[in-house]
């Protein structure tokens, strides 16, 4: 993805999280991940991304 599109994606996510509200933002993001995972169709790759995203959070 180009830096410009990544930038737009970032903004769109921030704006949508604010629109949906704090209470539902976790649900929104989890749904989004499932959609993207389904679209990717690659179990191994999705698993890698899950580990990558979790990495710097477990101290």
């Amino acid at each position: 993805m180009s830096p410009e599109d990544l930038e737009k994606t970032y903004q769109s996510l921030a704006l949508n999280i604010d629109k949906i509200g704090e209470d539902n933002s976790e649900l929104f993001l989890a749904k989004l991940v499932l959609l993207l995972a389904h679209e990717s169709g690659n179990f191994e790759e999705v698993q890698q991304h899950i580990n990558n995203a979790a990495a710097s959070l477990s101290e």
Partner: protein
Amino acid sequence: MRPASRNKTESLYFDYPHFDAPQLAARNERQSTQVAIVGAGPIGMTAALALAREGISSVLFDAKSTFNDGSRAICIARPSYYILEQLGAIKPFLEKSLPWTTGRTFYRGRQILEFEMPDSADEKYRPMYNLQQQYIEAFLWQAVDASDLIETRWQSEVTGVADHEDDSVMLTVRDPAGEYDFCAEWVLACDGARSPMRKLRGKRLQGENFEGRYVIADIQMNHDYPTIRRALFDPDCRPGGTVLVHKQPENIWRIDYQLTDEESTEDALLEHTVRSSVAAVLKDLEFDGPWELEWWSVYTANTLALDDYRDGRVFFVGDSAHIVPIFGVRGLNNGLADAANIGWKLGWVLKGRAGTGLLDSYTPERRGATLEEFSNATKSARFMPPRTHGWKLMRDAALSLAVNNPFAGELANPRQMTAFTYSGSPAVAADDPAFASGPVTGAVLRDVKLRDGYISEALGHGFTALCFDPELAQSVKTQAGENDTLATVTLPASAQDKFSACKESLYLLRPDMHIAARWYKAQPQQVIDTYRKVTFYHEVDL
């Protein structure tokens, strides 16, 4: 503010001069001028120098008896150095300031990004220079003081302004000897963010005040680190907050930190609070040597601007017209560009080289630059004060990912200051679609290194037609009238690439190096006609 142990303007490294009020006889002798400039800060002085460059005299008024206190604006961007060069003031800036190209971003103590700002051998100046504002003012003052065309009246507060007949403005000025009237054809209000002139004219800044308060503190220390801007996100010293660190000349370091909602401004400004906050930052920077506190202040991130920068014969220039968040480094830089813009335009109108219509291009061009900064503010401010849950969550996600994924670090790369493109301004023509690329109409010239020197050094004093064919250049020169201030420069064929040009192409540059028009295949008469159109030549009283 300064430590209690020192006087108000007692700096560790800078001697503030004292300027006397005007001598009574001299100030009574001169009671009018073509251009009065209110405020002798960096913007007012730049405006005066820009007018002087066009041969126009001005009188500068300032209520203070010395420069503004404290380092304030410290980042001067490349486009501003071209302005200072044009005004003949660049030398001391180059000698004193610290150039930089690199920024490093840290998240919880780990570096997640190192970015380089665009730079190349074609660039005469570096992307950014750090220099304290009092030096900026002192160096501009050297040039102002040396100019026969500029009179400065210190300790002279403008307390009233009224339109006078149809062709001038009457200022009321108060100095230690009393109050007097002073008549000017035009007034430039360069009196800063709190602009008394704006209030006197009944104008209000429009826009949003967004929450986000920052303390800026300058300290002096022998810290062995290159001139690289550091941004610390979520550091130990300020969990959840952001700290910026900049190096300045004289071993001065700028520490800039965001206040949380729980911290009151009053408390944050207390000397002992500033000292302990700074000490915590230094611990994160792993600096354990001695340091001295020099100066500190607080600011709020705002996006505010006047709807119109012109009010009759009064123009608002710099912070009096707009307030932008500090981290976009556009406050001073935009102000300098405002001053240069109105300076050449008003100079040209008063010299009879351009029609008064040219003055109406000031607001769209310069307010346009401010509005662009507002739209970028979401981006540049994003990593500073996340205002909402969504932006905060996304920021945290990007920073957290960036530790192992460099692509996410790029999201923290601040867009650097580039000059605004004046497309759609009445003082530029439409762009020629025949060009495949190259700098567009309205954009500022991108400098190119030639065999001896840079293109920017070869330009004429007024408009310049950049050609690639000496015959075309000669035809333009021959067909131009004696009142056209239009020089021609022929570039070597090797420069064509940089302009996406062919031999018959021509770029028409304004005095401020913005591109007024360009033709892939130029006709000399078209060039002359366009020059006259964008200078509103038909309105000139000859």
